[in-house]
């Protein structure tokens, strides 16, 4: 067992467990976005940044940092709150996240985080490059304008479904999640149509067809459930 403190509370974790996992067990809340139980951690969104006081105040992503003996972790402070809020604001500034016109309004992790972190406005100029909406799939659609590039769909597809249909194409602000070699989703030869990517998506970027504003409820927890039930190879 490894002993450490998070926000001054003494907690214990197993070797190999992450700061996030140990915090969760101890009932300490750390906001996350790209992390999803059942998928490998990516450390991409930086919302779970925590400060390790005895590492010179270094900021590390809680989801991808294994616990170490004697660590003094700060999970919640004014500094972290400000950083997390700034990260969220940049996500909102990058692409169009107008909740009122979104299928996921009211059931959206991005929206919930904004409320939790007190993000009442965005201090950065909106970029909002226009992206297309791909409705070529029979059951689902993808609206790149709502995508935060967390990669949960990419990992769900590769790690849980084993299809590896989704991948990132391009770079920077114009990065897109695309199927195979960039074909319309409906023409993908590897997509099984399982819909795990849709359930994993934290926003309204991936959605089931036929859902109107606010009607899309996701079940991201199914990824962990599916993984647990699977017999070990």
């Amino acid at each position, binding site marked *: 067992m490894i002993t450490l403190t998070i926000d001054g509370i003494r907690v214990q974790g197993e070797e190999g467990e992450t700061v996030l996992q140990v915090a969760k067990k101890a009932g300490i809340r750390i906001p996350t976005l790209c992390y999803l139980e059942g998928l490998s951690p990516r450390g991409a969104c930086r919302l779970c940044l925590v400060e390790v006081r005895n590492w010179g105040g270094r900021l590390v992503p809680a989801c991808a940092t294994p616990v170490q003996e004697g660590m003094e972790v700060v999970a919640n402070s004014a500094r972290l709150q400000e950083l997390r809020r700034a990260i969220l604001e940049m996500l909102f500034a990058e692409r169009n996240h107008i909740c009122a016109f979104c299928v996921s309004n009211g059931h959206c992790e991005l929206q919930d985080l904004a409320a939790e972190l007190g993000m009442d406005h965005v201090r950065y100029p909106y970029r909002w490059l226009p992206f297309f909406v791909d409705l070529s799939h029979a059951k689902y659609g993808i609206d790149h304008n709502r995508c935060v590039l967390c990669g949960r769909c*990419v990992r769900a597809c*590769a790690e849980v479904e084993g299809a*590896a*249909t*989704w*991948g*990132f*194409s*391009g*770079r920077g602000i114009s990065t897109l999640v*695309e*199927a*195979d*070699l*960039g074909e319309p989703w409906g023409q993908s030869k*590897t997509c099984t149509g399982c819909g795990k990517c849709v359930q994993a998506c934290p926003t309204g970027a991936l959605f089931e067809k036929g859902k109107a504003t606010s009607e899309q409820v996701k079940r991201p927890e199914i990824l962990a459930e599916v993984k647990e039930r699977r017999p070990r190879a």
Partner: protein
Amino acid sequence: MNPIAERVQELVKPYAGKPTELIQALHRVQSALGYLPKEAQLVVAEALGVPPSQVRGVVTFYHFFRTKPAGRHTIRVCLGTACHVRGAERVLSALKEELKVELGETTADGKFTLEAARCLGCCGLAPVMMIDEEVYGKLDAKRARQVVGQIP
């Protein structure tokens, strides 16, 4: 199977079954074909055992890889700091207009490919562009059009 796919299959043989050699394999294919069309990417994916989505990720991430054939001449307009200050944007938009292409595209007649560079290392001549191996400095919109017009 089409001739491109057959050729690519031959080229990637040394990397067969080695997903970690993806970039090497793509380099080899591009130096042989000049670019990486989708049919080539697909063969690379199958031969190395990498999902097509990942091959595309790598191909579109690195500026070095191109998915369309390059023109006979490559124009590189410098958009570095010094050139930016001295009007590189005006040179670039003049060339876009003259050649009727956007950045990264090739003219309809296959003569020019228009690209941007981040510094060509001769800021004293700003704004500059290179056409193939030749550097052209102290440009403005008019001069840029002239230079391009004189290339055979």
